[in-house]
């Protein structure tokens, strides 16, 4: 994966937080991980990618980050249902925004959200994923990109 491709997703994360909160997000140095040990926090929104590029993009975040992000959006209901909704919407927005670079053939699915154990995330064992660490206020999250 090229540096330019990674930058598309970094720009998407920065844009999302810039539009939805008054606090800029900090992006850490991206790194590679083996797919047998995927990174995950409390909630994970996964977008399946099909077309010429295949794989998935997911946004994973702690419960506390999502609660504060909901409040920044003006949403006072921080129920589990809305946390699940939000983590899926962030993943959908970042993936959808990437079509400015990849075009219409970068087909994205509706979000699938999982909570808790990273063992529930199954990625192709033959490849590796890029993790983009995200720091917002005092909280951590990540965007993970697993594309062929």
């Amino acid at each position, binding site marked *: 994966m090229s540096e330019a491709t990674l930058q598309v997703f970094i720009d998407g994360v920065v844009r999302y937080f810039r539009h939805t909160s008054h606090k800029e997000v900090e992006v850490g140095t991206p790194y590679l991980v083996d797919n047998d040990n995927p990174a995950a926090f409390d909630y994970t929104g996964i977008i399946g990618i099909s077309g010429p590029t295949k794989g998935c993009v997911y946004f994973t975040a702690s419960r506390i980050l999502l609660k504060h992000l909901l409040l920044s959006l003006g949403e006072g209901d921080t129920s589990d249902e809305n946390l699940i*909704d939000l983590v*899926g919407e962030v993943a959908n927005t970042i993936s959808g*925004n990437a079509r400015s670079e990849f075009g219409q053939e970068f087909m994205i699915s*509706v979000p699938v959200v999982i909570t808790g154990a990273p063992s529930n995330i199954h990625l192709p064992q033959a490849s590796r994923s890029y993790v983009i660490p995200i720091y917002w206020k005092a909280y951590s999250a990540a965007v993970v990109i697993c594309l062929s």
Partner: protein
Amino acid sequence: MLKLMIVDDSNIIRNKISRGHDDAKFSLVATASNGLDAIAQFKKHQPDVVTMDLTMPEMDGIDCISTLMALNPEVAILVVSALSDKATGIQALQMGARGFLLKPFTEEELENALNEITEQVDV
């Protein structure tokens, strides 16, 4: 007062649009979380203005726009989507949508987009 319907599979986005529209100009008459539900709500409430997500379960926004335009060619549809490629935007406009608002968006951007697409709506 224009009758508004919000279509998006995210409850958070539906709430954000619901909070962000101008209460003096729009009356929210319905919300829907997918294209099929949107068509049913559209037939029941006959909204003047629709905000439409594109990536949704059951029926996506492009197919839904096509059906809504067949039911009422005068409806003003604002696409609100994260899909940022030009081809999708052009496709939505060719299907009959009047505007495209890229997610994420601010309340000011939403208000401006709704005002733009409803300038020529006959109240």
